[in-house]
């Protein structure tokens, strides 16, 4: 079954739902419709997409995206790739964890690293990073500490352990500390992919 057939089947079975074909995958235009589409794909005897292989996020600078790879274990077919796009400032997507248990950890991971809020998730906490971690590291605008610039505390520690530090580096770190900044560097931004 090719992708446009799947699209027309979904649209005829679910009135009011519109999907778009984006690079061999189906973009569900309204995030709120995602659960309906997934339930249809899972329950209809034609598809029987009972296995959610992978859930992940992606950042395209203008919007955040959540990508789902669905397979059928019963019919040994697949994948059907679904994607949902949301605004960066309000990244709310309905959770699939109540339909597929397998989405539970994967959605927590995407929340942890991208900050996508999966609504109605049973336990949406950070998965890998600790509580109170600021920011979402896989977003492209996440500022990372620059390992080339030492912080004032690092310099103090190194000097206590007898490692000589060049004067200009010490001065730079001191200045940053005076400004109340930690050593940060701007990451270059790339152009959007798909």
């Amino acid at each position: 079954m090719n992708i446009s057939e799947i699209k027309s089947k979904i649209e005829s079975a679910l009135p009011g739902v519109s999907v778009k074909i984006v690079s061999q995958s189906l973009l569900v235009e309204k995030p709120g419709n995602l659960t309906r589409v997934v339930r249809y794909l899972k329950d209809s005897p034609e598809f029987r997409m009972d296995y959610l292989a992978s859930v992940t996020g992606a950042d395209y600078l203008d919007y955040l995206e959540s990508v789902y790879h669905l397979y059928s274990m019963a019919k040994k077919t697949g994948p059907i790739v679904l994607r949902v796009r949301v605004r960066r400032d309000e990244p709310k997507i309905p959770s699939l964890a109540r339909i597929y248990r397998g989405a539970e950890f994967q959605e927590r991971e995407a929340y942890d690293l991208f900050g996508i809020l999966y609504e109605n998730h049973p336990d949406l906490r950070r998965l890998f990073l600790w509580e109170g971690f600021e920011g979402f590291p896989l977003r492209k605008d996440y500022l990372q500490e620059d390992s080339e610039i030492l912080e004032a505390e690092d310099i103090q520690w190194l000097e206590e352990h007898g490692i000589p530090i060049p004067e200009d580096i010490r001065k730079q770190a001191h200045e940053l500390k005076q400004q109340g900044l930690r050593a940060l560097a701007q990451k270059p931004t790339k152009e959007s992919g798909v």
Partner: protein
Amino acid sequence: MDEKTVTVQDTNPMDTETLEVNFGPQHPSTHGVFRMNIVLDGETIVSVKPVMGYLHRNHEQIAENLTYAAVMPYTDRLDYFNSMANNFGYALAVEKLARIEVPERAQYIRVIMAELTRLVNHVSVIGFLLNDLGAFFTPVLYAFREREKILDIFEAISGSRMMCNYFRFGGVKRDVSDADLEQIRKIVQKFPAFLDEFEALLTKNEILCMRCQNVGVLPPDLAVNASITGPVLRASGVNYDIRKVDRYSIYERFSFRIPLGDKGDVYDRYYVRILEMRESVKILEQALKGIRPGEFIHPKSTSFLKLPRNFKPPVGEAYGRVESPKGELGYYLVSDGTPQPWRYHVRSPSLINLTVLEDLCVGHKVADAIIILGSIDIILGELDR
């Protein structure tokens, strides 16, 4: 167990209290730095909450800042027991993305390496499971004796025992010599005898049976719903093996069967792994018969070996998956036409197979939680990424 905190919920002296036990992260039975918060009623488990991230290094972000070729050595460090399988999945995903052909000999070498890795993984996992059961180190050392021979082969072929970094886009890094193939033939020939001995030691052992049978039963519908893959899924009786379903690489040329369990308990997971090793030996025998001299890497891809920055896959995305010894190992790649991947995601079987940990453990004794965890087979390098 590291710490015990008693939560006093009621002042009535006749009331029973639940005990919250923090299991891990520094505990040998967690196979790394994995932590579980277990709530116990007496010795029976009431709830299990896994806590992970102690080995988190944001593998995906590291990869997004590197060239495609430079990610390969990092994939070794995901599931550090099966670096060849990790390489395989990543190479497959990139080849799908950039539409690279792989020559026949390279395909054979890949299959041989992947199946040897499966032997290494399953034999050690069974050893560790027995360690968790209390059979202290005898089965592990028998397993490691066999693993050692295979790791020697990996060292001779790829240069490193565990961090192989052997696969390249469109082939493999170096050719396998006839002497190495002869050595592999010898190992494969002797492996069934070792398995017979291993089984004589374990399979009908009454203690093993009593500890493992009917413990941590995973019903097939829950297994499918929770996206469980690999031997854990097949032990529950669901016939799903990506080698058969996707027929990636050249797996359609080999005849092998997929062992299935009927109950889905710890014992089935143990026995499915034993049977899978026997099937792997069959695949290896056929592959070693079928391998012919030829190119070990596609001539078009050799130019990228010297200049990784010139390797720019066309704009698009790909999801490549392989049946790693732990389950479905998937790589999701998005290319924006630059030498670095825009998005790189690893679908790690260790993490997703843990979804059902609580369902398996609740109602069993605390000692069973450890063998259930051991039978799921997690590797923290892959789980935490």
